[in-house]
């Protein structure tokens, strides 16, 4: 039995005890407390000391909190904007206007889909040219309305398809980066799951970049790196370690500003807790950025990105 299966069994048992206690008026609090301690321990065990490769697997879980349900839980109100105004709409990259703790904000996010049908339509979160052209349009709306911009990233990468190329996906990604860098209000990005390559960085040129503890951010998938550099897909685990794609590696490299802890067992074990943690971090960073005058915001943004890796800041 895997740790995860064991955890599930324990949780069911605890739940049953609670039900019993309530139904029959029994005091089972001691028994329940023992179980709860075991559960907490197991969750910690599941989370700590896990390898980069395991984190890659965790970041890719389809049940990881993300996408539309995440945004709907995060914001009191969310109104979706659709379409790039030229070609179409992309279900893998979505966005709109929202209220977050009373503040008006614009939100962009990858949506991987919950059902198999939705996942197929959203290409498992790989957005196409239309998605990125739409994202740029929504950034422009947000700029016009003077709204802070939040992005929630979870994508294996941009979609490599014939139509994507025909509609200039490269230009669309480049335009997103540019528009985000010109945004006249604070921008905060949160990497919730996979931060895959160009498809992620298009939404990550933010004033602050946060990441969940078991999320990843990488120039290439470990499998891709293995097959290109080692000419052998079996080296994916090694690549995962060497690419420094885990949250803590990224923090050390100065690429992300904060690692948001996940609940014991991983974000997927506690949707609400994860949303709350992200919300708290978002509001804190927005609170720090909001008072800054525009020229200072742009100066700090320039400084942040102009020198990435330029000096031996890491190691």
């Amino acid at each position, binding site marked *: 039995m895997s740790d995860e299966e064991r955890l599930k069994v324990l949780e069911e048992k605890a739940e049953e005890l609670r039900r019993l206690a309530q139904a029959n008026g029994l005091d089972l609090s001691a028994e329940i407390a023992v179980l709860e301690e075991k559960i907490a321990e197991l969750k910690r065990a599941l989370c700590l000391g896990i390898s980069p490769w395991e984190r890659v697997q965790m970041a890719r879980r389809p049940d990881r909190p993300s996408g539309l349900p995440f945004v709907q839980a995060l914001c009191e109100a969310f109104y979706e904007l659709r379409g790039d105004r030229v070609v179409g709409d992309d279900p893998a990259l979505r966005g709109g206007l929202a209220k977050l703790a009373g503040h008006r904000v614009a939100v962009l996010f990858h949506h991987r889909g919950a059902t198999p049908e939705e996942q197929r339509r959203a290409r498992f979160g790989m957005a196409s040219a239309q998605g990125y052209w739409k994202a740029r349009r929504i950034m422009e709306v947000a700029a016009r309305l003077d709204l802070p911009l939040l992005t929630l990233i979870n994508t294996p990468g941009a979609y490599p398809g014939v139509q994507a190329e025909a509609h200039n*996906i*490269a*230009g669309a990604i*480049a*335009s997103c980066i540019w528009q985000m860098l010109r945004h006249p209000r604070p921008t905060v990005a949160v990497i919730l799951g996979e931060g895959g390559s160009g498809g992620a960085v298009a939404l990550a*040129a933010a004033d602050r970049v946060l990441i969940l503890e078991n999320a990843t951010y*990488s*120039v290439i998938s470990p499998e891709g790196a293995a097959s290109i550099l080692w000419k052998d897909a079996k080296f994916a685990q090694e690549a995962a370690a060497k690419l420094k794609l885990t949250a803590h590696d990224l923090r050390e490299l100065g690429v992300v500003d904060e690692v948001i802890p996940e609940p014991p067992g991983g974000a997927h074990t506690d949707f609400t807790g994860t949303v709350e943690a992200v919300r708290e971090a978002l509001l804190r960073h927005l609170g720090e950025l909001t008072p800054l005058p525009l020229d200072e915001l742009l100066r700090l943004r320039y400084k942040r990105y102009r020198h990435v*890796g330029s000096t031996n800041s*890491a190691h």
Partner: protein
Amino acid sequence: MPIRRDKRDRYVEIEVSAPQEPLWVRCESCGELIFRRKLQENQYVCPRCGAYFFLSARERVASLVDDGSFTEFLPPRVAEDPLGFADQIPYKDRLTRARKETELFEAVLAGSAQIQGIPVILTVMDFRFIGGSMGVGVGEILALAMERAAQERKPFVFVISSGGARVQEGVLSLLQMVKVVVARERLAQAAVPYVAVLTYPSTGGVLASLGGVADLTIAEEGALVGFAGPRVIEQTTGERLPPGFQTAKFALEHGMVDAVVPRAKLREELSQALSVLVA
């Protein structure tokens, strides 16, 4: 090495080997044995079949600028091998080898120059240098060059030949996409024009950042223009690639570039473009 296409008009990537200097070179596209000097005179286009060979950064510079007008910038100080990376060979060794083979500090060469009398800041990539990939060094050289162009109010010209990001520098190479665009915004703030020249290949993170936000974009006839490589697309999606996919002509027809020109006319085309860009 020549750029070949197979019968379905797709590009075939070719291993770039160490540049020796034999007197005769074989065109891998038509099989012709070509006298090296002759190939050089023809700007590395096969005199028999018209196939485009890679042009090294220095040869590209020589083909574009007024004689003797190029002044190379000093290499910047950057983090070398920021991840301490090694695959089959250590990244440091790969870098050393690339430097020795290409006689370049990095996959992009930068300097000031004149093109038919017009002063510009010129940056040219070299595909032989680890596939023209963009790591911290390339990002730094490009950003410095753009800052200089903005300051000196000279047009910025960027000739792309790149397979994408420098995988061995991990996420730091990915973030060079942001670095070069933040520097590009400096050009915009100064109303200084930026001309991109797409050659073979113009793909991945370089096209999806600095390559995608020029004021004016010229593609060389033999260019490959695309975000994802043809093989990746076929493998990931199972889609059949249409004829001429990701060629310069495809890019023109799909509204991505302003002009397509043969290599022999690139210098003249650039000078025409620059003439309307400077006072």
